[in-house]
């Protein structure tokens, strides 16, 4: 049912955890729908220096989260924002039709984290003005 890549990321997920002093945090999904992702990012010079996740969800959701963090790490914010919803699934060697929303969720989650970061940045600027 799942590609080997999915199963590999599911069984050995990269970047699990929290970042205590994260620059941005994104939460998407809802437990009642069966999946929730929290993504934490640390940004340095416009680059995703560190990223961690916690996910409640199926194997595809966990693998998508893990893959997303790998894809994002070391990239610039602009580059990460260009990652489309399907890219995560493609990197994972495809996902079953019914699970495509997990790929979407992962890209939504990192976007939410970046938005959170950007908003905090603009607040900081506001505050420093």
């Amino acid at each position, binding site marked *: 049912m799942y590609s080997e890549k999915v199963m590999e990321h599911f069984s050995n997920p990269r970047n699990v955890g929290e970042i205590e002093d994260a620059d941005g945090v994104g939460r998407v999904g809802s437990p009642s729908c069966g999946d929730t992702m929290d993504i934490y990012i640390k940004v340095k010079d416009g680059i995703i220096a560190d990223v961690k996740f916690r996910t409640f969800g199926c*194997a595809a959701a966990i693998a998508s989260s893990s893959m997303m963090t790998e894809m994002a790490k070391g990239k610039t914010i602009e580059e990460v924002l260009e990652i489309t919803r399907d890219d995560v699934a493609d990197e994972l060697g495809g996902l079953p039709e019914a699970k495509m929303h997990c790929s979407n969720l992962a890209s939504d989650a990192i976007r939410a984290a970046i938005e959170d970061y950007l908003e905090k940045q603009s607040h900081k600027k506001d505050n420093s003005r």
Partner: protein
Amino acid sequence: MKRIYMDHSATTPTDPLVVEAMLPYFTEKFGNASSLHFFGQEAAEALEQSRKQVAYLIGARPEEIIFTSGGTESDNLAIKGIAYQNSGKGKHIITSVIEHPAVLNTCAHLEKDGFEVTYVPVDSDGILDVAELENAIRDDTILITVMHANNEIGTIQPITEISKISKEKGIYFHTDAVQSVGKIPVDVNELGVDLLSISSHKIHGPKGVGALYIKKGTLIQAIAHGGEHEARLRAGTENIPGIVGFAKATTLAKERLAVDSKHLTELRDLLIKKVLDSIGHSYLNGHPTKRLPNNANLRFSFIEGEAMLLSLDMKGIAVSTASACSSRSLEPSHVLKAIGLRPEDAHGSLRFSLGKDNTREEVDYVVESLAEVVRKLRDMSPLV
């Protein structure tokens, strides 16, 4: 890898004795039971002998057994057969909210066809509310269909109570006994039902065979049209090897029932106790005792079922989330919703369904592995 199968409600391995019984009917005694010659008569005899065996399992008469291609077809035939036969009398059907899709989707189809269906709720233990069912009865109610035991949480429904009511009111009563047969006693007369569905592959028989008990004198309409097989109720060349295997499985099930159900109950209770004792925030879904001897449906907070299932699978352990049929869908189980679970709790449930060959050692290994899996997934969960 050593593999442990605890998904016997989805399907069971065919018993080697069953395979042995089937084998001659593929290559040697291969006749078509409708043929008049030697090969055909040999097949016809095997067919009637098998009918006797299946009838015997459930206390029926041979002529009350119709062979089908499985539990789903039996449910379809029973429900549509009664509905279309009696649509002149009325178009109201009563069922429960926790039926198998074979019943629920058949009812949904009949709704599109002008029938009305009332879905009676269950309590938080997963037992049907008989008073609600009685209240739902109308003048135009023609059929009650309530399963004997639930396939997800294993709860056993008050069939004899319902059949008292159905008899009093003169309403046909069908029960889906696909999960109960072979695990608890199933006798059509004690249950008092008019129609009862069985499936071979749930009791160590081959897949693709089932039966419908139709009480003598109960008229139903055929749903498959063609030759005059199976009392004209089920057209199609009879699957003789499959039917012979099914019959053998019923005979074995009858012989083994007492021993098997004792063994299964012990294992089940051991599994439940060990899980609840050793894993925090774990709970049993469904009634603690009014349940199949082989079913333990367990719930683990903060984590999701498919992830648990696949993690266990990597350790060689086969279990299921909800029923096999709905495990590809994203909706939480309708049964777990019906007993009042929040969606996230429904999503975090696993079904362990034991078989006669499971052992205490396997239970130990499963509980250990499960604890590890739950820990790992909870470490990943944002909900903890």
